[in-house]
């Protein structure tokens, strides 16, 4: 059993190197076919994302094939092998399994817990599968990796908290208001980060969108883009009477909204809650506004702090996730070992022996009045039949051949030798 991971990621290679090695567009099918054609490679999967390029292979002998895979990478991307080596890492067997599980569970990601990687792993696997480049062991491994990732997702809170400022803003809005779809929103000023937050709010249900900008033309443009309406900048305070969520990102050098003004506005709002996000630097909203009842003001540092503590939280959860991964690696290893021929042969013989004995007993019970010699003859004949039937499969299983894993799996399936652990795996196959 030889699983080999060859790869590079954001930790080992800068983006200039990663992009040169990427398998994008037409390169992916070509690369898969070429890799599969490399001697000693029984099956392969290529995962290529902006943060990593990894080749998952089942090989005949890791030490020998490793060099061939590096050569393939260099030749395929027209690079020099030596330039490549420094960025590459290799994992074999147990370490390879652990690495793949960690990647799928987003423990190896730049932002730990980010959800995209699982989809990318799935796509890479399905693509390789559709081109018939994988092997039985790889199929099993990848399905397991996907289910481990799901287990990590449900049993830890690794992906729960927002780790970007704009998501943190949305998360807060949802804890202040129950339903964002009946809330109104205004964007004061513009700015990239503000725009991102606005888009998140809109995708989370906010429908009533207004934009105010010192340049009215810009407000109109942005409003059209966001599907909202433009408000003249002078009127924004008036607009606040009916607005629940405010994002402020003007370039004003001073505060544009003071506590006393807000207090008046709150009276006119009948004290209905308002959430103000001030992401301008210098700040545009008087921080003392946060002291007013039912007004919640967050500036860019507050949001950053939320994000930082969420990241810390994720690290803690990541530790729990590592334990889960370790557990699953051990389970997978047990399965791999069970692929070894000896236990299968033993199990096959045991089963045959059980059947033989049971049938003999039934037969001898029915045949009353036979003597010992006759009985021995019957026993001998039945044993001979069983042994002769079992001989060819035993020999085949013992042979060191390329497709031995497949044979072992086939024998197990055909004779119903599956152990308890196998059942769950069969379920995954059907999924």
């Amino acid at each position: 059993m030889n699983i080999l991971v060859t790869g590079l990621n954001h930790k080992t290679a800068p983006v200039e190197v990663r992009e040169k090695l990427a398998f994008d567009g037409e390169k992916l099918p070509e690369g898969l076919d070429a890799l599969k054609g490399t001697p000693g490679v029984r099956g392969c999967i290529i995962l290529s994302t902006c943060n990593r390029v990894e080749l998952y292979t089942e090989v005949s002998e890791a030490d020998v094939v490793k060099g061939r895979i590096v050569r393939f990478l260099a030749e395929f991307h027209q690079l020099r092998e030596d330039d490549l080596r420094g960025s590459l890492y290799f994992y074999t067997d147990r370490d390879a399994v652990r690495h793949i599980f960690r990647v799928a569970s987003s423990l190896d990601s730049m932002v730990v817990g980010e959800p995209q990687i699982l989809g990318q792993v799935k796509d890479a696997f399905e693509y390789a599968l559709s081109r018939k480049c994988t092997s039985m062991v790889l199929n099993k491994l990848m399905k397991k990796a996907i289910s481990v990732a799901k287990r990590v997702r449900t049993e830890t809170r690794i992906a729960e908290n927002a780790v970007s400022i704009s998501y943190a803003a949305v998360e807060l809005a949802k804890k202040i208001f129950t339903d964002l779809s009946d809330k109104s929103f205004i964007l004061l000023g513009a700015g990239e980060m503000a725009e991102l937050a606005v888009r998140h709010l809109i995708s989370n249900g906010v429908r009533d969108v207004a934009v105010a900008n010192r340049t009215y033309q810009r407000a109109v443009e942005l409003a059209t883009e966001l599907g909202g309406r433009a408000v003249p900048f002078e009127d924004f305070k008036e607009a606040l009477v009916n607005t629940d969520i405010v994002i402020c990102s003007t370039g004003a050098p001073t505060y544009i909204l003071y506590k006393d003004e807000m207090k008046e506005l709150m009276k006119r709002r009948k004290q209905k809650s308002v959430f103000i996000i001030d992401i301008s630097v210098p700040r545009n909203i008087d921080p003392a506004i946060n002291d007013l009842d039912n007004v919640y003001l967050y500036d860019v540092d507050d949001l950053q702090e939320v994000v930082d503590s969420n990241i810390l939280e994720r690290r803690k959860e990541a530790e729990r996730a590592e334990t889960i991964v370790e557990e699953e690696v051990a389970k997978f290893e047990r399965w791999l070992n069970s692929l070894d021929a000896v236990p299968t042969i033993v199990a096959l013989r045991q089963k045959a022996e059980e059947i033989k004995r049971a049938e003999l007993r039934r037969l001898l019970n029915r045949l009353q009045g036979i003597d010992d010699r006759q009985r021995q003859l019957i026993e001998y004949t039945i044993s001979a039949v069983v042994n002769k039937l079992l001989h060819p499969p035993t020999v085949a299983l013992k042979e060191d051949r390329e497709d031995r894993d497949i044979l072992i799996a086939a024998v197990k399936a055909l004779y119903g030798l599956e152990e308890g652990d196998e059942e769950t795996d069969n379920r995954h196959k059907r999924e």
Partner: protein
Amino acid sequence: MVILFELALTFYFAATVVGIVELFRSSKATETFMLLLTGSGFILHTLSILSRSFEAGHLPVTNMHEATSFFSWCIVLLFFYIEYRYRVGLLGSFIMPVVFLIMLSSSVLPREITPMNPILRSYWLWVHTTLAFLGDASFAMAAGIGLMYLVQEHFVKKKHLGSLFHRLPSLQMLDEINYRLISLGFPLLTLAIITGALWAESALGSYWRWDPKEVWSLITWFIYVFVLHARLRQGWRGRKAAILSLVGFAAVLFTFFGVNLLLKGYHAFVK
């Protein structure tokens, strides 16, 4: 049957413990377990009250032990309604300790069934006390929700967003439920006072006798008039409303325990 009461008390205690554990580390399993414990306790509690009704021949609210037991029964009933209707995460963690404490105080109070004063024997007992207790239970629930609001508001204002922040419901939702509960409790209390007056008239000959319970019920009633008025007229929602609902519940508790234990009157179960 005494054993039913003790069992219910035990289940509520277990639910309280699980509820507190849930505050620190929650999972789907603890949540379900808490509801299961509370539900089992509630069934046993219901049977306990029913068996005592048959024994006494009337709704068992005629001594302090029975009254407190019935009060906590009403709170749990309402808890299940709110849980079913709004699925407020962690509500049980805030409510079950209160239920358990009231039940515990009930368990140490004398339990013998005292014969009822014949002039008080009428259907009014049933109507008046049920209204009053359901009203009080709404206020208890509103206070629990109010406390949750204050906790969550503290997190949002102080910008400390831990795991409890993630599991508590939104401020708006808590505020809305708080308001609904008070809007439910207030008419119940009003009707309880009116039916009490009618009962007093038919049994004792006058509507209002300045009995301490009557006085304190009136004070409580005025507090909730203020709570509702301040919300509707002055926009006292959110934090202020939450604090007021705690103040109101303190008055409810005093009317309930304080008056019976410290002051005398025909509500005090003293012959």
